[in-house]
């Protein structure tokens, strides 16, 4: 590595303030990206039912969210689905990643390609396909909570677990196979090698994959929309139905909550990945 990275900035750092075009470019793109989102979040604290002018700071709308039973129910649904999806996706993803990494078998290439399909395929098509699929196999409706969330959860798992598998697979790529050979050499059975050597190495990937599956499930709108019955509303679907009437500060507040949860979970996932990359580097 040292060969090509001797110097972090060998051309010599340029003083930002002297470069007007750079300053302008940075400012414009930042504005472009941040303005709508920051506006949305800021106006959730605006003391006015109309969204246009700033009238003062309030957290009233968050209190209203808290007291809105149907919204809280939607949030509970979303969390339930996300937790179930996370657990199943991580286990399935880990097994898939391990099988792909460890074994050779006929049709492995097809299988790996197929794995990536749900990542590539347009969400709307996934949604329609899931809807048709559940209709065709005659998935029962009107079940009691939380079993009525089953179809959404299954759709979310089908959608989310390939992401988890890819994250875990990527982690396994950095595994030094001499470690598992060495454990074998020291007398470990194949199962002990998996348990003692491979799983500890996988762990950061498992956590990152789980967090990814969690945010994918929590944030999903399209697939949920198509697989949800009328009595199974999730948080994003609820926001959607609120927006259909008008963009009230409650919508802003609900969106802000969803954004913050996602940001926190994603930050944790990235932090784990970075940390484990750094450990990986220092160990070799």
């Amino acid at each position, binding site marked *: 590595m040292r060969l090509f990275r001797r110097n972090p900035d060998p051309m010599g750092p340029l003083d930002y303030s002297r470069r007007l075009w750079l300053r302008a470019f940075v400012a414009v793109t930042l504005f472009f990206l941040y303005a709508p989102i920051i506006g949305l979040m800021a106006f959730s604290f605006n003391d006015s039912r109309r969204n246009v002018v700033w009238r003062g700071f309030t957290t009233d709308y968050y209190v209203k969210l808290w007291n809105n039973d149907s919204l809280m129910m939607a949030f509970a649904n979303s969390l339930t689905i996300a937790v179930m999806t996370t657990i199943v996706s991580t286990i399935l993803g880990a097994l898939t990643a391990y099988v792909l990494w460890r074994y050779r078998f006929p049709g492995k290439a097809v299988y790996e390609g197929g794995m990536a399909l749900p990542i590539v395929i347009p969400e709307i098509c996934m949604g329609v396909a899931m809807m048709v699929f559940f209709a065709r196999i005659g998935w029962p409706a009107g079940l009691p909570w939380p079993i009525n969330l089953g179809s959404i959860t299954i759709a979310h798992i089908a959608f989310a677990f390939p992401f988890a598998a890819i994250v875990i697979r990527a982690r396994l790529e950095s595994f*030094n196979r*001499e*470690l598992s*050979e*060495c*454990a*074998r*050499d*020291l*007398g*470990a*059975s194949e199962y*002990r090698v998996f348990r*003692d*050597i491979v799983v*500890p*190495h996988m762990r950061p990937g498992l956590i990152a994959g789980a967090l990814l599956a969690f945010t994918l499930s929590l944030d999903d709108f399209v697939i949920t929309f198509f697989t949800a019955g009328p009595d199974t509303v999730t948080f994003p679907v609820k926001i959607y139905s609120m927006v259909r009437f008008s963009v009230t500060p409650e919508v802003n507040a609900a969106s802000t909550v969803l954004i913050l949860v996602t940001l926190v979970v994603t930050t944790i996932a990235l932090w784990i990945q970075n940390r484990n990359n750094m*450990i990986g580097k*220092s*160990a*070799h």
Partner: protein
Amino acid sequence: MSDAPIIQIKNVSKLYGGTVKAVDGVDLEVGRGEFFALLGPSGCGKTTLLRMLAGFEVPTAGQVIIDGQDMATVQPNKRPVNMVFQSYAVFPHMSVEQNVGYGLKMERRPAKEIRERVAEALELVKLGHLGKRMPDEMSGGQRQRVALARALVKRPKVLLLDEPLSALDAKLREAMQLELVRLQKTVGITFVIVTHDQSEALSMANRIAVMNQGKVQQVAPPAELYEMPANRFVADFIGKINMIEGDSTAAGDGEVRVKAHPLGEMTLKGTATGKVALAVRPEKIFVDEKEPTDPNLIKVKGKVGEVAYFGSYSNVFFDIGLGQPLQADISNVSSDIEEYTFKAGEQYWIYWRKSDTLVLGD
């Protein structure tokens, strides 16, 4: 303890993809307590052979016998050998003690025995004070010691080492060479080391097998390998050597009559006939302004070409009227710089003993 070899490799071959012969009909025996080296360029099959001993590769043909037992159906975790891997393969999430104790834990030894034997093994590799450390807090040299202790604590019949010094820097490598030799003498276990570095093999091993393209070229102790290489490949791969092409005819009594321009005709010890190479090591060559008279010398006049100074010796290239120059290593045994200064264009007599001259066939 019996005198039978600890390792017997009988006509072993390994094919990849049905045709590529990584190992091609190798026969080898390694004695008890030997420090044995497998030496050769990359891709010569030496690592494949080592991995067959460990059980990570299965021979396509032939037999691998360790301590009298055929290894054909024995899994890697059941073999009486242990390996030190090229990357050291220290388990990153275990402390040094846990690393070293892992093999004993797999044997389901009692905790007390594990503790004692781990401590003993760490003392052996001079890491007694670092048992609680995690691998990422250790240097490359220390991690190698962990790998050594972890393999030795299992008291294997054979310790396999796969390029154990290639990840260390030059100074540390030299120190570890000596230490590995010392360690092997202390524990008395048979060591089999794989290396592509001839000076490593020469300085450490009792016996060396030189391999090329899947085949064993020569098996001999270091000095024999260096002074009596079996063929051109071995002569060229081990150390530096001058080769002068010539024609040889048998002269009986273990001698041959060799004619080689510009040296003339002479009778030498050897058996190779036909097109041969007269070979002489650079450090066996002497240089003088006066013509030597001893009839047991081969001599030729030459002109100094390039001189490469290396501190402890100078590598002097002489033009003797051949396509390639003749190189001589002149040891700089005096600090008086003038004494061994060669200037391009100077004429010298170059000579060496007939007994230091090799006659090499292909």
